[in-house]
């Protein structure tokens, strides 16, 4: 990423306007052409610097639910369990972490009852008990990562 890419990433974390030509609006703020901005955003998405670009929906506000859950997976079973967990559409993302609880994943479902159903499915398919840690409260401050040119 060059300096301009960083400026674009930082600016686009601040929000994107809901107007007929939003890229033109942001481009003029940054002193760019609309087409250049669109092309650069496309490249940043293609090369994975942006994991996505668009609205960030809050599932709970739509009646859905999120939970953070974890498994203690025996080393030898790790790949098999990863396949089982990742195959579920309810699993939005999963990470391996250096801990006794070595697999952590976020469940996102369309109803609160969907979380329990997904947990049951994972327990049944893996034979492992799920540590289910739904948030009780979020202390939310919308902070952005700062992109710096290397």
């Amino acid at each position: 990423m060059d300096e301009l890419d960083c400026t674009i990433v930082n600016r686009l974390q601040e929000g994107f306007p809901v107007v007929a030509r939003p890229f033109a609006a942001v481009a003029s703020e940054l002193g760019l052409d609309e087409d250049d901005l669109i092309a650069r955003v496309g490249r940043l998405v293609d090369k994975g610097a942006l994991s996505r670009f668009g609205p960030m929906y809050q599932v709970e506000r739509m009646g859905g639910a999120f939970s953070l859950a974890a498994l203690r997976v025996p080393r030898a079973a790790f790949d098999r369990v990863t396949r089982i967990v990742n195959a579920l559409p309810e699993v939005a993302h999963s990470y391996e972490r250096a801990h006794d609880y070595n697999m952590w994943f976020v469940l996102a479902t369309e109803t609160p009852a969907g979380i329990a159903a997904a947990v049951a499915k994972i327990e049944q398919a893996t034979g492992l008990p799920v540590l289910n840690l739904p948030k009780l409260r979020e202390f939310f401050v919308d902070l952005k990562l700062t992109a710096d040119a290397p």
Partner: protein
Amino acid sequence: MNDVRGIALDAADRRIVVATQAGLPLTPEPYHAVARAVGLAPEEVMRRLQRMLDLGVIRRIGAVPNHYALGVRANGMSVWDVDDARVNELGARVGALSFVSHCYHRPRVPPHWRYNLFAMVHGRERGEVEVKVAEIADLLGVACRAQDVLYSTRILKKTGLRIKTVLSAEC
């Protein structure tokens, strides 16, 4: 216990959610492209997106950077066993620290899990995360009885939210 309630979305809102959850089209008039895909007027799509923003159904519209691509290689989930009577007050202070990207109060699950406060801390390497974790420890002081930091060693899946037709986030 969650302080958020579901907000009624109608069928047209849901079509917009489904059409945009993977991202906005990268064209000069992205909302017009969405409008064509869902069979609504562009003004109607923009009005509905703005309403969802105002209601918090959409947290924001914009870019979601990949931490790793930004040189953030150490991603530590710090977990804390904090006095339940003080967790709201302390969680709010930890959540306000500039380097904490997400902060949550979660249940304990004895005997397996004793930690009730979670704070995500990112850094270019682990040493940077450790310095930040020490700052949190200072802030919590005697209210903290135990702590741990779980570093991610691999991303196994990252698709974000996918709803089918009814609804469907980031973390």
